[in-house]
């Protein structure tokens, strides 16, 4: 994907100069290995600061709303699906956007990389299919495909769904991927095992809400956990309150989550919060034949009533 960089800069510079957009939302180089920082570019001469590689995992759609300018956004497959969701939910109008579409080959999970080496990572350089990891004691080359974020390794919508211009030819979407293997593994557990699984999953949660804030779907002016009149959920570290947060967050994303992985990536405690949303994604596919953010013509199933909606799971 680093090969996209020149094209991204070329398009960004051109549309800024032509006045098609006022700003570009993209990434600039971060200060740590495998970290880039979301940024806004306002002038054509600053386009040189933009970067694109496999460390651009945070969903940029978060940064689009409540702005007045005409926005150019560098968007990979999942980002464009969240743009679609935003458009359908009236959060933004397509006319306000110029979508620079990125056919994506997946984002790197820095925790996975860290687990491959036994001392601190000093520098990571990326090639097309491999990355070179330099630690204090060692230097190794690893295959990018082994290091992808879990959601990226099972992603079948890498190509942008909507775009104004592409940075490269569309790529072939992976086939024969079992996207729901992890969900099935949990589904096959006994009730007690499931309980223990989820208790362990969230046992280190500090309720910082990074998962919520990194998600473009979580745009409520006041989140239910922050509401104080009345207060729906306790603020403390009581387990039932932590569970309540996780369950409700996930349900709010049902039929809207694009499995972009931003939530999981943001969690400082490495909690696999997608375990919750992934199940709801599977249910939406199975029950409603629905995948989030694939079309501008329909609303998510939980937003809508249809006479033929399945109801045999309602008790």
């Amino acid at each position, binding site marked *: 994907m680093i090969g996209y960089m020149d094209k991204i800069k070329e398009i960004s510079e051109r549309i800024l100069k032509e006045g098609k957009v006022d700003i570009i939302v993209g990434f600039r180089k971060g*200060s740590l290995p495998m970290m880039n920082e*979301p940024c806004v570019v306002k002038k054509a001469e600053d386009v040189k600061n933009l970067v694109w590689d496999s460390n651009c995992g945070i969903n940029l759609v978060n940064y689009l709303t409540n702005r007045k300018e005409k926005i150019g956004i560098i968007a990979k497959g999942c980002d464009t699906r969240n743009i679609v969701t935003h458009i359908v939910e009236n959060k933004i109008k397509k006319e306000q956007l110029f979508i620079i579409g990125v056919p994506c080959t997946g984002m790197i999970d820095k925790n996975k990389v860290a687990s491959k080496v036994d*001392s601190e990572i000093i520098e990571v350089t990326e090639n097309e299919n491999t990355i070179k990891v330099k630690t204090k004691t060692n230097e190794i080359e690893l295959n990018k495909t082994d290091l992808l974020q879990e959601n990226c390794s099972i992603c079948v919508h890498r190509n942008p769904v909507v775009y104004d211009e592409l940075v490269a030819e569309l790529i072939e979407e992976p086939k024969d991927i079992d996207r729901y293997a992890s969900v099935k593994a949990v589904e096959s557990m006994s009730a007690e095992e499931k309980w223990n699984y989820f208790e362990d999953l969230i046992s280190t949660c500090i309720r910082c809400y990074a998962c919520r804030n990194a998600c473009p779907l979580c745009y409520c002016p006041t989140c239910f956990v922050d509401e*104080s009149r009345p207060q729906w959920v306790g603020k403390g570290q009581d387990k039932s309150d932590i569970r309540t947060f996780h369950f409700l967050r996930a349900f709010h994303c049902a039929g809207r989550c694009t499995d972009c992985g931003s939530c999981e990536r943001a969690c400082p405690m490495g909690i696999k919060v997608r375990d919750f949303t992934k199940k709801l994604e599977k249910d939406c596919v199975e029950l409603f034949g629905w995948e989030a953010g694939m079309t501008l013509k329909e609303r998510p199933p939980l937003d809508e009533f249809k006479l033929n909606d399945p109801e045999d799971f309602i008790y």
Partner: protein
Amino acid sequence: MKVVKIDKENWAEGIEKIKESYKVFGPSKSKEFHLFKELEKGEAPDLNFLNTRLSPKSMFFPQSEGILCYCLDPNKKDECNIVKEIQKDYSPKAIIGIRPCDAKAFTLVRPNFDNEEYQDPYWIKAYDSITFIGLACSNTDDSKKGMPCSSCFCTSAGCGPFNEEGLDALIVNTDDGYIIKALTNKGEEFLNKAELSANSNADELTANINTLKKQAEEKINSFVETDKLKDKILLDLHSANFWDDECFACINCGTCTYVCPTCWCFDIQDENYGDSGVRFKQWDSCMYPLFTLHGSGHNPRSTKVQRFRQRFMHKLKYYVDKYDNGIQCVGCGRCIRLCPVNIDIRKICNIMNSYEPAA
């Protein structure tokens, strides 16, 4: 004060001995990272770590801490409508393996909880019940991970890999043993209770420590500039034009404040269930909109840029001005490593330090 060097073979035995006199806490790896936890019988602190994911501040400043409880049940005559203090465990505790930056951080925090005007009894009693046994950030064979790490900037943040402030004793992990230097009476007492048979040629060991200290300090290659912060005009910095650009990526998640050893903000909450309830202290963060929301509905820090600015102004300007005790940051680097969008306090600090308002 006592300086001893003990064989690594004797270490586990000493730890067990110590558990007779203290509740012992130490770094322990669960899942992918280290956190401080109470060590079970037979469990020694795992000293092979860079730094713990969270600072150990929750040992005396828990994320949620019940302080008072009450009962509204008229049938319980002796208790009804009476607010009671919640009884807590202030028995002696030892925390082994705390990094020097965290220990120093708590000395920066103390004036907030313990000053002439106000004393927070919960914080003070809990803090004072702990003996802090630090672990110097030196590079040894069994810590190939290599301390200090590249995002540590303690030496320019008023601290350092062998800094002693806030510690009762300091452990230096060397290839052939642990050198332990007592720094306070509490630290001496700890050493005595551990009954470690040890070599204690104080002069030689001190010289040894000093060499390792110098080596460790030289390894730190990340710095902040803070020398001009104090002389800056507060309102110039507050109205500076860089905040908008720097805050763009921030998602106001609060992670940086929760993981930080020097962040001290908390809220008071009441929770009621049926006829009883509890009042508790609860970590809060200036990054959250609710932090400053008034009862009237007005919010003086309603935008992201205001909240973002508050975090850095507090740490790097208000604290500096108020306490004249350096910045409210010890350079542990946690906020940098764990920020999901790579906001870097080193960069912000340097921008603030070099900021000149347009003439």
